[in-house]
């Protein structure tokens, strides 16, 4: 597949879109120790939100709570206008597509078998899912590799295979936990541009955890910054950069300004670990 530096159309403007994900007063504790405290976050349909924060502040925990992998101690969570926390009876598992911090590809399954996991779990049209996965292989830079085991793939390919699995989960909301964390700088940049391109085409609502301020600014509509543990949101700011975004923008004045603002916010957290804003 090819990645053009200049995407022709602008990313759709999403400010006026409906609220897809609304987190209010969310608190998560493990054995009495608070990991995430009183988080309020709204994500609109088709919006790309980047979640920044120091290590161990509870970014993964927040994602896990939204996905339904851990139960919050307090707070509400609304998905597509429906309140799912506090639980309304049915489990909220399976409502969003979740990509764990590491790729979590099953080493005994080929790329295609990994990618179609969701259809297998839901016993819903495995053949159709395989068909779609095959069609999407080139778009994910995996053409000719559908029958390969993950061990035979490069780091970038593995990550794209995990993305394919996430996209084929067929949910509007994607929760991505540091998808590029394990990649080298060059592959990372290529993958960021690739993801922008993909998101432009597919229009998912994305909440993505990252450590990398540049990555957040390059990709997201909105950046949310968390405090050190117990993590809460200390700032939610729109990214003031035009789309389409390119890697060249990292040298722009506006980019540098926003980057230093965010870095300053993060640095405060490193200086006083555990303190409230």
């Amino acid at each position, binding site marked *: *597949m*090819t*990645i*053009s530096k200049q995407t022709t159309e602008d990313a759709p403007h999403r400010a006026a879109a409906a609220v897809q994900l609304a987190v209010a007063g969310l608190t998560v504790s493990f054995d009495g120790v608070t990991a995430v405290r009183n988080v309020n976050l709204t994500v609109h349909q088709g919006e790309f939100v980047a979640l920044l924060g120091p290590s161990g502040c509870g970014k993964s925990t927040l994602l*896990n709570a939204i*996905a*339904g*992998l851990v139960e919050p101690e307090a707070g509400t969570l609304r998905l597509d206008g429906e309140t799912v926390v506090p639980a309304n009876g049915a*489990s909220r*598992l*399976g409502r*969003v*597509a*979740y990509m*764990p*911090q*590491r790729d*979590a590809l*099953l*080493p*005994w399954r*080929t790329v*295609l078998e990994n990618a179609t*996991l*969701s259809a*297998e*779990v*839901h016993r819903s049209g495995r053949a159709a899912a395989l068909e779609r996965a*095959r069609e999407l*292989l*080139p778009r994910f*830079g*995996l*053409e*000719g*590799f*559908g*029958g*390969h*085991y*993950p*061990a*035979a*793939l*490069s780091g*970038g*390919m593995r990550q*794209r295979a995990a993305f394919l699995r996430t996209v084929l*989960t067929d949910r509007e909301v994607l929760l991505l936990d540091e998808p590029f964390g394990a990649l080298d700088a060059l592959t990372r940049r*290529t993958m960021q541009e*690739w993801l922008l391109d993909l998101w432009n085409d597919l229009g998912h609502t994305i909440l993505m955890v990252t450590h990398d301020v540049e990555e957040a600014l390059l990709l997201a509509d909105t950046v949310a910054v968390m405090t050190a543990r117990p993590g809460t949101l200390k700032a939610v700011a729109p990214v003031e950069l035009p789309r389409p975004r390119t890697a060249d923008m990292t040298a722009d004045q506006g980019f540098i300004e926003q980057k230093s603002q965010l870095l300053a916010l993060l640095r405060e957290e490193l200086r006083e670990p555990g303190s409230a804003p």
Partner: protein
Amino acid sequence: MIDLARRDAAAVGNRRARQFDVRRLTSWLVPLALLSLTLVIWEAWVRIDDTPAWFMPSPSAVAEELWSSRALLWEHTWTTLQEVLLGYAIALLVGVTTALLIAYSPIAERTIYPLIVASQAIPIIALAPILLIWFGFGMTPKVIVVVLLCYFPIAVNMADGLRAADRDALNLLRSMGASRWQQMRIVRIPSSLPYLISGARIAAAVSVIGAIVGEWVGASSGLGYLMTRAASQFLTARLFATVAISAALGIALFVIVALVGRLLVPWADEGRGAQRVSRD
């Protein structure tokens, strides 16, 4: 323009090329050569020194005995083989079932698992005389010794493997809404297979020992029985022949289990994974 697929394909190609090396072959040749050399020296030593045959037969004398007494040897080998295979099969079945139970039920995990681990310290061979009293000179007590010896490595290894499954993968499945059984089938069981196979390999190695020691304690047939009889009559060449056969049995079983293991977990080895033909 960056062609992702082509760049990555080149990386994979390099990796695949690396696996055609001669190390695999030499890894077999060197020990084989060493073994042959030992046999040659042994043969020469016995001939030059004129060692009495009842004390130390030459390799050729043992080979001669293997051939001339083949009917007798086969009869007793068959008894031992039956004990080993039957015991091994039962241990595999019961061991895997126990492991699945432990992984599926937290109560079983808290009650059975510590017991199994602790009981590994019991010298099971010491039970053979008791089993002889209870079950007599037939095959039953030997099969039981083999089952007991093989059961623990299989059950404990597989249980550990089921528990060691990748948490991220399990979380991923849960996030998709997978049931407990689906998590078991899709993640836990496959990731336990390498553990199961290493347990099964250990079991293969000890199974022949179990049957033979069981036969030493009291039997009317089997390689262990033939060994004690040959030893008491100073039929040393025959004794060596039975030792050679039991060694061959143990090695054959071990190799078979290792080969089945490779078939079951082709992903355990990166090179083999890359070889699988693309099906898309």
